[in-house]
């Protein structure tokens, strides 16, 4: 008998009382979701930019590229100085990645990013610094609302990103910048 079959056979009878799948009706906190989002984004060490829109972001990126920084953008209307390379490994020297987020979650400061907007899947992790761009009307109250709106089609990859990478594995001291991006700036457009 295959291991699959023996596992499934063993599961035919379990000692747990039958239990219906509960209905998930958790009341969202709907007061000023943008303010909630900003507070929680700060908690997870990210920064929100609410004014200036695409123009201010492009101006900032132009400054960075003028300094010789390597900037890749997969966001419509924003230009960096690097194109999506042939292999993921060639992203190793990217200083800044500018990526569009599909939606943001007020209760925890997370932003959903789908691989269709990434070039290579590793882009938001391998870049030194990450810029995420979101539309103000895509901020939802909580994860229950967000989870039903995320794009995750067959074969896809997507990720909730809440802040820059971090660790507290040495004596519980918080260090921002572990393996992923060392900073996260979020631009509201």
């Amino acid at each position: 008998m295959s291991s699959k079959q023996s596992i499934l056979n063993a599961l035919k009878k379990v000692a747990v009382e039958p239990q219906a799948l509960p209905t998930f009706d958790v009341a969202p906190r709907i007061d000023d979701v943008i303010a909630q989002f900003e507070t929680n984004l700060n908690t997870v060490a990210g920064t929100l930019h609410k004014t200036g829109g695409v123009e201010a972001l492009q101006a900032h990126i132009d400054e960075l590229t003028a300094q010789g920084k390597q900037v890749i953008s997969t966001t419509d209307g924003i230009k960096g100085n690097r194109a999506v390379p042939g292999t993921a490994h060639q992203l190793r020297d990217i200083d800044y990645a500018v990526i569009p987020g599909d939606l943001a979650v007020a209760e925890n400061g997370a932003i959903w990013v789908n691989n269709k907007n990434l070039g290579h899947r590793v882009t938001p992790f391998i870049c030194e610094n990450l810029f995420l761009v979101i539309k103000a009307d895509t901020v939802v109250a909580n994860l229950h609302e967000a989870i039903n709106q995320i794009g995750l089609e067959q074969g896809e990859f997507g990720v909730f990103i809440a802040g820059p990478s971090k660790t507290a594995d040495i004596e519980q001291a918080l260090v921002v910048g572990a393996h992923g991006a060392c900073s996260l700036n979020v631009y509201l457009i």
Partner: protein
Amino acid sequence: MSTNHSSAIGSAVHAKKAEIFCRDEARVDWHSKALWMLREKRDRAAASLPEWEQLRQLGSELKLHTLTNLGHYLEEFEKNCLDNGILVHWAKDGVEHNQIVHKILAAKQVKKLVKSKSMLTEECHLNPYLESQGIEVIDTDLGERIIQLAGMPPSHIVVPAIHMKKEEVGDLFHEQLGTEKGASDPLYLTRAARAHLREQFLSADAAMTGVNMAIANKGAVVVCTNEGNADMGANLPKLQLHSMGIDKIVPDLDSAAVLLRTLARNATGQPITTYSSFYRGPQTDGEMHIIIVDNGRTEMLQDKILAESLKCIRCGGCLNTCPVYRRSGGYSYNYTIPGPIGIAVGAQNDDTNSIPWACTLCGSCSYVCPTKVPLDKIIHHHRRLKAQAGKLPYGKRSYMPLVGNFMASETMLNCSMSVARTALRVLPGSILKPFSGAWGKYRELPVAPSSSFETWFNKNRGK
């Protein structure tokens, strides 16, 4: 390495290993406080959500529901994975799991594997197996990399190197990674590890991760990290592997959302982990494998009480709150997973038959658990199972029945308590102390009351 690490290898009764850990009192205090800090952060995060108790209840119910229909959901999950281009393997135990992993890696001539945190692969002892087959395994979570370089197992499921001081990490990195001698600043050491591990990610032939949730109706796995190490691994080499216990299945995205809301809040007090990644297929030209592992879980499901331990989502909250874990350390449990949940899922295999007693039955763990695993009840049940199997530790087997008879007899109890009160009053402590055994080691003998409670009650409250 200090004596604190020496207890990690080999099994011994819990009290013996705890005694080794407790030799350095200042370190024990520090360890206890570091963990209590996590508990306090957890409390603040939980209190910030008015629906916290509702989420715990939902988490418990959705997990129980899944466990009662596990075969159905596993088959649904496999079917959807295959539709998504994901290859699925089934392993009945750790040995088979390791062989499957090796076969996948060998087919692609993998020389170097980067691995993010997975308690399951620790449970299966995957690293030594792959190393014996000539494959280099690099643990990429910072805490795991630290203990891997130190040649030790994890002492906590979320913060694996919690028992180590930054100076010790500094010495280790100086020897192994060439950091400056004497440097112990966490920022400096973390940056050094980042640079070192970046090279490993970029030169790896394959990546492996654990699984936080497997979504049956999507055929997707969710992997949560703060460091980004799972995603740096899985998205660079073209071969990605994910190992999961059968208990990681949830029916749908709504269920996953409930658990994602409580997981990080209960672990570290964060509103969510930095990265919650949903893999529903391999990258372009890539290959994605999922290995579904039983390794004793179906057997636990045959016991109504033990089964509930499979509701666990491995947040580590029960470790942080446990007064015994905080003061005895992760290496005192004879199992990869320490603390209350480690007793719940590991006591069956404890050859010292002492681990179910590494618990005061205070119930704090059950109180903080985000899926309401009745940990104290399970631990108590393990004591009963040990007794029924005739495996009680010597003392409990020999004198506990006598104590039981003695305490059941009113005459004997009253008479001897009277003697004890008199003895405590008239005899010096130095003579009496040895009779109190291990209990008296760190405690003073009590001041004897002048009469028994019964006498006092009859005099003051009686008719």
